[in-house]
């Protein structure tokens, strides 16, 4: 059964007419054309689809948008401040922390939540926070370094 859902994504209100059983990942990619959020395993096992709901990382492939009406959803498209990249994006680019880039949107969103709560995390805290984001390319070292560099460089924009 289709119905109208009111979703707030990246600070904008959207009304989408979709079947209630579509996942957030499907609605973001197929109905809102926000394809920056990646479709990996669709099982909750890779973190490629991570987005923020009220500032906390959640897997879009497991979440139902019908449950998230009225909540603040942030995707990778909402990370930069207009044309100014987020310090995490700058650090990832400078250090080559993205290779194929498929895991990168999920990693960036999860790392943003970490830095918002804890602006100067230790390596251990970064590893812990990013434990759910699998990366097939980088071996993780560059990713951790980039999060550390972003933390150093940032006056983090909220």
């Amino acid at each position, binding site marked *: 059964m289709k119905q109208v859902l009111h979703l707030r994504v990246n600070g904008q209100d959207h009304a989408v007419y979709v079947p209630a*059983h579509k996942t957030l990942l499907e609605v973001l990619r197929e109905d809102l054309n926000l394809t920056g959020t990646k479709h990996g395993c669709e099982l909750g096992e890779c973190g490629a689809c991570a987005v923020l709901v009220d500032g906390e*990382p959640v897997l879009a492939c*497991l979440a139902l948008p019908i449950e998230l009406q009225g909540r603040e959803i942030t995707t990778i498209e909402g990370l930069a401040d207009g044309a100014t990249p987020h310090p995490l994006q700058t650090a990832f680019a400078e250090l080559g922390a993205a290779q194929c880039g498929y895991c990168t949107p999920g990693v960036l969103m999860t790392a943003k939540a970490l830095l918002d709560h804890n602006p100067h995390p230790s390596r251990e805290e970064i590893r812990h926070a990013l434990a759910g984001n699998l990366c097939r390319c980088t071996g993780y070292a560059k990713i951790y370094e980039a999060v550390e560099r972003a933390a150093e460089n940032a006056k983090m924009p909220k």
Partner: protein
Amino acid sequence: MKAFELYDAATVQDAVSMLSKFGPAAKVVAGGSDLVAGVMKDWIHGKGMPYPEKLIDVTTIPEMVGIKLASDSATIGAATTLSAIAESPQMQKGWRVLTDSLFSVASPEIRNLGTLGGNINQRPRCWFFRGEKFSCYKKGGDFCFAVTGDNRYNAIIGGELCYIVHPSDAATALLALNASATIAGTGGTRTVQFDNYFTGPREDVLRENILKPDEVMVNVTIPRLAPNTKTAWTKLKFRQVYDFALVSVAVVATQENGVWKDGRVVLGGVAPVPYRAKVVEQALAGKNIKENAKAAAAAIKTVARPMSANAYKVDVATALIEKTLLDAIA
């Protein structure tokens, strides 16, 4: 996934009356990480397991969310997220074995979505059960594919007819902590010790606990530990994230000068229910824990009946029990 209707329950009573009105095709949903994103998305259903048509959301019931501390216990709403419990400083201080078990669940993102009630009541992970095409006993079919097929992750204790292992890490810790659940149904509210909550395939192969179709788990109460009680948690898994227990052990040991007075040794990943290893507890009674940990741990071998491909789990369980006992008193 097939279409379904979703109802937000406002109160526990509201949820219970919807469940009884809608009948067997209605299910309680919390985070939905197992029911919707696992069972329903993967089309897991069968004669004994109707595909849900109506979901009753309990995360909208205020009394089911949050942690209440009392002088002698903590009461956790069943719709509280695993992250909220694991990250609570009071829970870490009072019930570390529970918060450690929760930090070992899945990944940070799944813990943000998944709830305590959902974790305890999640369905098993036997890969035949999770495969749409296998109509096994647990779905109302007439065969157990694990008996003739690859059973490396199945039960080594207490299997019969069906050989699942109970998937919940929270359940293993809660049983060790002698916790109880408050359950509401059309007949009223009851409190059940976790000792009596989980049921094996002999009782009813179609479910894993005593919850009736019209019942909701409202909250979980955990008593404070007795003085001189030490605890520890170990979970062995192939990957550090996203993985269920190959074997897990929760120890809650009340001791005096290193001697076992009272306590529990509970195993996950070995049986269709979180398994209280009474043989190990008995082997420790009145004895020095450190000196007897190895021999007591080996007592698990006397109750294990491994299948064709999982005898290794008996050795793993033996080693982990010893390690966890020693960790608790260290």
